């Protein structure tokens, strides 16, 4: 629905529907690859951080060393390959959803040699290069789109969060790989163990941030360029009620999950 195809709209009706073509949307490959790798990565890192915590507390080292080793075997390749997949995803977004890219980079003016900016620092041409492999390419800015259609600025912050975490985790994975190549036990270094404990939740945070980028970033469209979210929503009034109810239910369930997980960890790692 980010790059819909497999149908035409004629007088508000969908015609020439081809469900197989709909599944070959140019967004399928990178979204599936990016999310599947992210899921393996986040799970392996979350589980690995628990075992790293147990090793730091010196509980059953033989078992937890093996378990952490398994988690690293999954987390290292995933974390190293994810930036490359993410780069490919970014180029697909640049090609098919220029407004989302402009919102991610908060690029207001359309320009050639578009810079990549972090606060006061700007690298000229870097955004053009990342988006199109050409330092001089023209990148559309938000000014090209009606102001009331601009996605919420949270897209920018979520995007920075995801990329920041992804970079951090890739660095951590390189460190872990280096230690493994030099045949160092994962628990031989306290700084490495503590870092592994600290990054535990970050994979999941990055996934959430990534979903905010792609779903808030494609607003105001539910089916990009075809169906606006306003027109797709149910006419049911007071939709804030189910929103609040489901949010509270899931907040409560999340709190319980954290309590239960803590209990399970405490059972393995005595105080």
């Amino acid at each position, binding site marked *: 629905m980010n790059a819909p195809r497999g149908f035409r709209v004629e007088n508000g009706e969908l015609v020439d*529907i081809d*469900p197989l073509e709909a599944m070959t949307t140019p967004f399928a490959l990178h979204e599936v690859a990016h999310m599947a790798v992210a899921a393996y990565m986040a799970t392996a890192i979350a589980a690995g951080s628990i075992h790293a915590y147990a090793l730091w507390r010196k509980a059953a080292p033989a078992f937890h060393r093996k378990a952490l080793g398994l988690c690293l075997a999954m987390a290292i390749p995933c974390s190293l390959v994810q930036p490359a997949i993410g780069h490919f995803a970014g180029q697909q977004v640049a090609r098919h959803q220029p407004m989302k890219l402009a919102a991610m980079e908060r690029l207001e003016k359309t320009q050639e040699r578009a810079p990549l900016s972090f606060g006061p620092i700007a690298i000229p041409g870097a955004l053009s290069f990342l988006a199109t492999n050409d330092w001089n390419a023209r990148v559309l800015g938000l000014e090209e789109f009606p102001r009331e259609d601009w996605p919420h600025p949270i897209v920018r912050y979520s995007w920075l969060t995801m990329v920041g975490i992804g970079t951090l985790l890739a660095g951590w994975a390189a460190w872990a790989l280096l230690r493994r190549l030099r045949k160092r036990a994962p628990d031989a270094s306290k700084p490495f163990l503590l870092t592994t404990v600290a990054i535990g939740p970050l994979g999941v945070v990055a996934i959430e941030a990534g979903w905010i980028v792609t779903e808030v970033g494609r607003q105001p469209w539910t089916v990009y360029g075809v169906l606006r979210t306003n027109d797709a929503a*149910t006419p*049911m009034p007071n939709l804030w009620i189910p929103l609040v109810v489901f949010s509270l*239910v899931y907040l409560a*369930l999340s709190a*319980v999950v954290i309590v*239960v997980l803590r*209990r*399970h960890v405490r059972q393995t790692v005595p105080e």
Partner: protein
Amino acid sequence: VSAPDLAAFAMLAGLAVYLVTGGADFGAGFWDLVARGPRARDQRRLIEQAIAPLWEANHVWLIFVVVILFTAFPPAFSAAGIALHIPLTILLLGIVLRGSAFVFRQYGGGDAAESRGWGRVFAASSVVTPVFLGVVVAAVTSGEIRVTGGIPTTGFLAGWLGLFPLSVGLLTLVLCAFLAAVYLTVAAGDDLALREDFRARALGTGIALAPCALLAALSAGPATEHFFERFVGSWWTWPLQLATAVSAIGALVALFGRRYHLARVLAVAQATFILAGWGLGQRPYLIAPDVTIHGAASPPQTLSIMLVIVAAGGVLLIPSLYLLFRVFRKIS
């Protein structure tokens, strides 16, 4: 038989499997709620053992039904989602709370008081959910949800808030409780006291099905005439009624004679025939009287791909579920 009819049949079949598997899980939660007497704790433990290995696997059938509904009949999915927003939301909350509460009770590592608390959430949501499942089924039959140009025009309370849908909800709950009690007589194995407990419960709910069905029929409004005309006046009326009656009475006789495996087969047949009767009577409507199977069907190319996928998926899914059941039965 056309492609839309096949898709509607696949939905009905999925709903039937959901009723005799997931429905029985809800029924087991009901028996957890009303466990009484000196063996209340043993009853709860038996229920726990019966559900634990599979806890939420049976919900695949509800997902199967919903996916076919929005793939094969998108206008019906949209209209039902709008008109039945409130009962569907309650249904969804019930499913979420039930599954979570069961897991937190089973694997949460809490003390006895906490487990009891989760047990109450589990049991209460096990009762609410099948009632609202029945309410939703009754609502699309009630004839009170009117749809013009794909949009419901009768508001957000029509069809589901009333005596008829509530009595169908009650019927669904009693049917689920009956199925669960029959299954639990088999699961109780050599524990004769527990077996007798659930035999009595199965007999009680099996007999209670008759007045519940009568109440549902009597409370049906004039707009359900389309349903009852077909239900009592079609070529399939008598064979189906006969099959339902024979399996219903047969299940009770088998329970009475303590032939539990036979009772289980007959109870499954009875539940399937009841649902088949509803499905045949409901045809050609998805949401009576404005949304029909043919009127709401997706274009033929979508339907044919979906039917191929359903058939191929069945080849994969049914043996997997069979294996799952077998493995866990061997373990327990």
